[in-house]
């Protein structure tokens, strides 16, 4: 099996307070991977650190054996829906077109080819009819689909989705899951920050259990066990917490 994604000894700190300690993991290609853990476990941080949005205190990230910087054309990203201003003066199609900007490079504008890609991606998420809407006029589920279509327009090999199911209706959740399965079928790897422990077995092949450190990472069947879940959610990691708090206290 080809290795799609690998993290070596990653530690991430916000304002000197560590939020992720010594993460080591390897993921094969063509899997749907859930990133699961309690609030504040560092799930979003794991993605952001991977994409270079927050600096690493130590360690490195490899995508298909090379650094993110060299491989970013292989990566698609769906940030949390709340991270942008939905009153921004753009239409649904404008947002999806942004997925093609990385390929376009400096100064070039999206042309007919890019618009065609955008429309195909909108069709895949069932949003064709709303292509010319201003994005504020969409429901939460529709906004999430727009973000997903934008990531599809990136035409990536590995996707990082930050809570794509938060605040979406049941129909959208089902549609997203179906889309993820299509992606997997074409050999893509998808990492998804996920909150609902109930649906992990149903949705994912692999799971990353996270609570400031890596609890476990592997196939759902063998990894998503009660024991590991208990380690993730149950026992507070008092020592790590206290160490982090001590670091923070030293701040003026």
């Amino acid at each position: 099996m080809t290795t799609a994604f690998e993290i070596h000894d990653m530690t991430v700190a916000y304002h000197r307070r560590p939020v992720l300690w010594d993460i080591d993991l390897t993921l094969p290609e063509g899997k749907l991977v859930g990133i699961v853990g309690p609030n504040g476990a560092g799930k979003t941080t794991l993605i952001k650190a991977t994409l270079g949005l927050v600096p690493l205190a130590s360690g490195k990230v490899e995508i298909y054996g090379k650094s993110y910087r060299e491989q970013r054309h292989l990566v698609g990203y769906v940030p949390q829906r709340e991270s942008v201003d939905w009153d921004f003066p753009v239409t649904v199609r404008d947002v999806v077109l942004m997925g093609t900007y990385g390929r376009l490079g400096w100064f070039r504008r999206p042309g007919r080819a890019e618009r065609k890609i955008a429309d195909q991606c909108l069709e895949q998420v069932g949003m064709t009819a709303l292509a010319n809407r201003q994005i504020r006029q969409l429901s939460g589920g529709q906004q999430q689909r727009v973000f997903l279509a934008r990531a599809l327009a990136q035409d990536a090999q590995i996707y990082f989705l930050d809570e794509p199911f938060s605040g979406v209706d049941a129909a959208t959740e089902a549609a997203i899951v179906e889309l993820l399965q299509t992606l997997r079928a074409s050999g893509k790897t998808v990492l998804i920050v996920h909150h609902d422990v109930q649906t992990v077995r149903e949705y994912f092949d692999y799971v990353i259990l996270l609570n400031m450190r890596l609890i476990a990472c592997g196939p759902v069947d063998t990894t998503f066990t009660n024991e590991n879940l208990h380690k993730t959610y149950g026992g507070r990691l008092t020592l790590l917490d206290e160490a982090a708090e001590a670091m923070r206290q030293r701040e003026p």
Partner: protein
Amino acid sequence: MLALTITTKVMLGTALLGATAGVVGSFAVLRGRSLVGDMLAHAALPGIGLAFLIMGSRSMLGLSVGALASGLLAIGAVTLIVRWTRTKEDAAIGIVLSTFFGAGVVLLSHIQKPGIGGNKAGLDSYLFGEPGNMLTSDLLVLVVVGAAMLLVVVLLFKEFKLVCFDIDFAQSQGWPTLALDLLMMASLAVVTIVGLPIVGVILMAAMIILPAATARFWTNRLHVLLLLAAGFGMAAGPLGTYFGRGLPAGASIVLTGASFFVVSVFVAPQRGVLARVLAEYRLRKRITREHLLRSLYELSESQLPEIPNLPLATVRQYRHWNALEKLLQQEFEAGTIQTDAEHVQLTPLGLRRAAELTKAHRLWEMYLVQFADIAPDHVDRDADDIEHLLPEALLVELEQQLADEDRLPSTVAEVPSSPHDLG
């Protein structure tokens, strides 16, 4: 050299400044940086004073360099305060802005003492702006700055749009977001500095914020917003100087811009206050008319297919009405009812519409009772609020869902019986 009258120069200069500030300001406003322009402008004052003291003359270039330097120093100060203390950004901006401005005023009053610069220094114009002092060379500077900004925005439209909308996504694609952000900020700084002698440090922020905020009312597309902001800015300059003859020019330009904004707040389609009030009024009106038709249907229901001639008194008692006569008159004109002083009767057209409305109402009620576990005696009011807004597609879906649950009579075209006691 071109021989331009002072009026022409002022008109051209303020129009150019307005357009440039409008475009560059749009990105600042969309990026949530409206106040940075304000801070840059206020913080420029001590730099202008110091530059004058050092050079001993008021050449525009020298003063601009001073203004830019102290403006950048202020931005640096805010960044440091936010980074190293627990002060929030808005508070830090307020602190730095007023401190620099205070220092500027002290410097200016020192300069105006006889023997140093005196009133001849003419630095007063930097406080409130004095377009009348504009030289042809100043106009040339404005043309160059305007052209440069236009070039930057046209070239980097896509990049700026992406950074303003979703900076994390931009960075994940590998764009140098910090550099792009700084370039936007630098454009803002340059436009602010060249605008200072024209509208003054106090009011320059309005030139940056007003056109974009006004344009936002009229469009949902970024490129249109930029064009409109340029237009509003361009119009505010000359109109303000024209109508404000004898008044401080900076102030009258800003007031003109503000009047565009106020007008837009009211009359803009969709986002404007009037449009929203009108939409609300139309909805209220539609709801009362639908209530009337549904009430008439419910009162006639027992005698259908015969359409009974109902006594008006019964209708009056059936529910609370505001201005029933007027409502009846409207429906009569719409051809849905027949009415005389004592009676009211649905026409066949009215019956058909009333049946549709009642069906929608009851489908929604049934849905609430069935799926949302709302007690049947509470359901009427809840249903009333929402049913008027239900799109037809949703109603069809509702019908289907209830049919699947065997909760509808076999012929769904019929109006199902009410799930609660009427009246």
